[in-house]
């Protein structure tokens, strides 16, 4: 079977030409199939006596998988030509290019490849505007390409673009059969198109004159080739059909075109001699440095997460918000399993402080929805969620609605208008188009901050905790530690912004008398600044402390804030006593021990450095590993002079060889085996005492085997 794609600018006459060629080929005794690849689905009309046939995409929309049959989308037309039409979405909805991909996929699944045909003609919409419309150019489909153009500049511009597309799908074999000049009566048309063809390394294989026979034939729903087989037009069409057969049979060669660059196109338009080209399209494909196209993944900022997940994660921290993922089931699965695995298991073992929620919904976009738009599904899902009684709903968009351009905003507005009292937030994260996890989290936070009721007056004794991550408090023990710290001053948590909270709690944020950041990370500061912007409240100047010295500072300030300085002093004396006793007892095992700290999370590790120094350890390296997720954040530390920035595993390798460490403390999931003892660097809780527990852990690690015995096991 030989396959030919007929391309050209919209309205240039591709469908008319394709239908005529199909009839001509069929009359020459070949079994022919014509595939219309244009959303306006009129390619085969002239082969079916003017009737429109059911398009593949309409069929996909209306008939479920399993009930589909090839014969439902294929009709037999003039001279036995098999006809099928891709169709497409309504204007402004979905993605027509994706429609072409789906059509080919559907026809393949229905067994169209097994149809007994000698030649297939693909009649493809105008310019190569996206990957979808370029599908017929692929080697698996088009053995030959025919371009249709007139002498108008835009028609040749489109033809040139198609040649560029063809070079992107270069199979290594020459495939351009030639150019059909479908005359429009433009002055000097013939010469212009021939100059264009020559410059592009091809030729004009037929000139089709403007002729009233076309309108006569089309008015009756037929081709000129069928109605006026003896006409000059029919003869010209026959010559094209013969050319296709000759190329197929190897009697005539096709060519690999050399599409014109912008300067050459200017020469063509100006009627000047066309200067020699630089093979621009080929360079563009392989990434010429001058046109700003990428060559390598190294030129990108690799994102290992997506904004949609960050937004979903933010909303799921509010127990009574329903989260609707506008996307395919894959997204819900990938996001939910990531969260649930940790949360549910921790909870089921009694380690997690509060009950996780699972108010998660998905619009379940599939391929057909991506073609016809997903707004109907979004609307249906939102109505379902609202009918379940949720008063606060968040919609988060994934890649698919972003790429096909769903107007999610309009749907959200419509459902909101119909349901007064229901708040529906929209986060147009569009997967990773809006960035990665943190970006999505902050987009959601922008909305959530807006829920805070600033008219509420503060009440004494309540405090808000602000943070993007509450790992420090995610065990019962750590949470109880926090409660103890606060209760010493008669304080209670009002709202965790954002963690284990509710819409009531968020709305009542201003009920607290002050707000404290859980830690001093860039994300935490950004979140706090959003709150300040909305409420005018400044966060407490010191974040929730970890380690003795931060704790002392914090407790002094809280004591002053609450007018309880004496209580603060008493606590400091107690903690200092405990700390000093610990140092006395444990320092002998740390004294002089050479320790490397590798910190991938760029969190503040002052608490760790403090206690290790107090225990007499010899800290030989503190390496901070850069992270794309923390791009732009600065390291804040009392021990800044000890820190090596932009540290990486290669440097660690060198250090392990040259610094002879006794212990590596890192958050590497798989530390270097057997070189030295290694300890996990993890969240330890808040306050001063958890630091002592962590130091005991380090002390134990230094007395335990370098590697666990299981590591000597074999692969299954």
């Amino acid at each position, binding site marked *: 079977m030989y396959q030919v794609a007929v391309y050209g600018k919209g309205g240039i006459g591709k469908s008319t030409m394709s239908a005529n060629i199909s009839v001509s080929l069929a009359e020459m005794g070949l079994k022919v199939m014509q595939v219309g690849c244009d959303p306006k689905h009129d390619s085969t009309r002239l082969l079916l006596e003017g009737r429109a046939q059911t398009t593949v995409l309409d069929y996909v929309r209306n008939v479920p998988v399993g009930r589909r049959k090839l014969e439902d989308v294929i009709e037999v037309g003039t001279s036995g030509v098999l006809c099928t039409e891709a169709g497409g979405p309504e204007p402004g909805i979905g993605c027509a290019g994706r429609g072409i991909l789906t059509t080919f996929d559907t026809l393949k699944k229905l067994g169209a490849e097994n149809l007994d045909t000698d030649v297939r003609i693909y009649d493809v919409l105008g310019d190569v505007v996206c990957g979808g419309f370029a599908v017929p150019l692929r080697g698996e489909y088009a053995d030959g390409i025919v371009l249709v153009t007139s002498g108008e500049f835009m028609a040749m511009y489109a033809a040139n673009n198609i040649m560029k597309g063809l070079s992107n799908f270069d199979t290594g074999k020459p495939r351009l059969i030639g150019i059909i000049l479908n005359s429009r009566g433009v002055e000097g048309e013939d010469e212009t198109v021939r100059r264009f063809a020559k410059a592009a390394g091809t030729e004009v294989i037929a000139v089709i004159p403007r002729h009233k026979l076309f309108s006569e034939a089309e008015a009756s729903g037929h081709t000129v080739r069928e109605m006026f087989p003896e006409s000059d037009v029919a003869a010209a069409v026959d010559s094209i059909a013969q050319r296709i057969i000759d190329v197929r049979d190897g009697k005539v060669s096709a060519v690999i075109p050399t599409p014109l660059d912008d300067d050459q196109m200017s020469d063509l338009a100006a009627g000047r001699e066309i200067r020699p080209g630089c093979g621009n399209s080929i360079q563009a494909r392989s990434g010429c440095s001058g046109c700003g196209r990428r060559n390598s993944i190294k030129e990108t900022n690799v994102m290992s997460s997506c904004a949609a997940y960050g937004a979903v994660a933010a909303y799921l921290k509010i127990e009574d918000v329903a989260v609707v993922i506008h996307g395919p089931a*894959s997204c819900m699965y990938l996001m939910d399993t990531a969260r649930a695995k940790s949360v549910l298991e921790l909870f089921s073992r009694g380690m997690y402080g509060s009950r996780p929620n699972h108010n998660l919904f998905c619009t379940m976009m599939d391929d057909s929805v991506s073609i016809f738009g997903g707004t109907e599904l979004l609307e249906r899902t939102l109505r379902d969620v609202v009918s379940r009684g949720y008063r606060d709903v968040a919609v988060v968009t994934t890649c698919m609605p972003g790429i096909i351009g769903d107007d999610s905003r309009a749907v959200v507005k419509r459902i909101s208008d119909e349901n007064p009292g229901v708040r529906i937030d929209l986060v147009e994260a569009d997967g990773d188009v809006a960035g990665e996890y943190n970006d999505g989290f902050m987009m959601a936070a922008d909305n959530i901050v807006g829920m805070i009721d600033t008219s509420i007056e503060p009440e004494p004794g309540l405090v808000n905790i602000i943070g993007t991550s509450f790992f420090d408090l995610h065990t019962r023990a750590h949470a109880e530690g926090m409660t103890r710290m606060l209760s010493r001053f008669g304080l209670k948590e009002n709202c965790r912004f954002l963690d284990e909270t509710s819409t009531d709690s968020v709305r009542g944020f201003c009920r607290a008398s002050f707000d404290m950041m859980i830690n001093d990370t860039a994300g935490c500061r950004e979140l706090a600044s959003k709150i300040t912007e909305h409420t005018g409240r400044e966060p407490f100047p010191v974040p929730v402390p970890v380690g003795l010295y931060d704790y002392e500072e914090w407790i002094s300030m809280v004591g002053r804030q609450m007018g309880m300085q004496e209580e603060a002093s008493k606590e400091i004396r107690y903690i200092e006593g405990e700390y000093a006793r610990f140092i006395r007892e444990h320092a002998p095992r740390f004294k002089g021990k050479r320790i490397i700290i590798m910190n991938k999370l760029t969190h503040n590790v002052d608490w760790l450095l403090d206690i290790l120094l107090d225990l007499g350890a010899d800290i030989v390296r503190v390496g901070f590993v850069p992270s794309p997720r923390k791009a732009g954040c600065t390291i804040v530390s009392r021990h800044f002079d000890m820190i090596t920035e932009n540290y990486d595993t290669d440097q660690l390798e060198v250090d392990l060889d040259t610094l002879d460490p006794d212990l590596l403390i890192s958050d590497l999931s798989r530390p270097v085996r057997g070189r030295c003892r290694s300890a996990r660097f993890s969240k330890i809780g808040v306050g001063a005492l958890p630091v002592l527990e962590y130091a005991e852990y380090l002390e134990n690690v230094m007395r335990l085997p370098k590697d666990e015995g299981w590591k000597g096991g074999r692969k299954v």
Partner: protein
Amino acid sequence: MRTLPDGFNGAVMAVESISDAMAFLHGPGGCRVRQMVHSTAVFPREDPDDVRGYFIPYFNGYPRVPATYLDEYDYINGAFYKVVEGLDVVNSKNPELVVIVNSPGAALIGDNHEKAIRDMGLQSKVMYMDESLVSMPMTSCYGHMLRAVLEFLEPSRDHPMEGTFILLGMTVLDKDWRAATEELSGLLESMGLKFICAPGAGASTTDLVESVNAEFAVVVSPESCEGLTEFYSEHGVKVIRSPGGAPVGFDAVETWLRNVADITGMDPSSALEVLYKAKDRVYEKFVGMKYNALRIKGMTFSAAGVASIVRPLTEWLYSYLAMAPVAVKVDPGADPQEVEALAGFLQSIDYSDSMGLEPKVGCGAVFCEGIQAYTMQIEGSCRIAVPIGHSSMGLDDIIPRPIYGIQGALFILDEILHGVRGS
């Protein structure tokens, strides 16, 4: 809403199920993370030390499911350059087979994988799947992908091996799939058959090529080998499918074993003896703790999942433990025969109203995928939660706790017994 993997996840994991193959994801990093973690968790292959060699582009420190990390620029301009460059990097790790799989977003931009593969001269070991499988049933896409791989490998039945078998319809997403494969294949081997491999559950590319020489293909769960059974039939392998559904629960295991014996002409007695011993052990335990056992009778349960699993499970819980099926739901892609048999069974016991209901709040036990089951348990919506779905949870058991086979029946009974303690 239950959280289920879909066809995209299934396609990636089907490739990852092949011990020496690698899925190369054409998609954003967000689509990669969980799949690389999941693949590593359910089918670990690399030693901890191997990881050091993966701090390179496309792998970014993790050995499984390398990806092109698509971003906004790529959605607009295409990312052909990444496919070409990435293939070179992925190939440097010497997998026997690479399958390029499009993420949901990548399926919309139409990059030409065929050309990339050809440009790199890797036609013999790299294939691609550019169908959009999103929101399609996970199980059927798993089988679909395996069939595509087999067609790519072009195995030839040039030396049929009498008395040999392969297992079909096992996936690496099945809970403790390796233990289940070992047990089921071991039971059949005890009848005198010889096991070749389980396509989709740890078989290598060499195994897959060899698999068409098997005499029998024994189906575990028909949904997960949709398309595959036809492939093997076309190659002359006799497909054996149990009338009892997947071997879940003692009764279905027995039916499964006897059916294989009937068709292959082998003696099932040694395999059945293992089963009967397990049943004896349960009897002994139940007699010894009769108050707990008594608490099970009359308990309501919900079951949701793959039809060929839910059907025998429902039948077994009803007959063996006298539990009441108050909600029974099958996942998308259900095998019609299984659905019909399940509906027929429920009707025969006057529980037809339960068919099609999602796990019910207030029932005694919930059998479904882990997230839903555990969430319901935590919320107090059920007393017992048993994860029977594709591995969303519970990957860290050392004592094998599969769903299939004799071990599977014991696992289910254990979970129920532990749940009724003190109730």
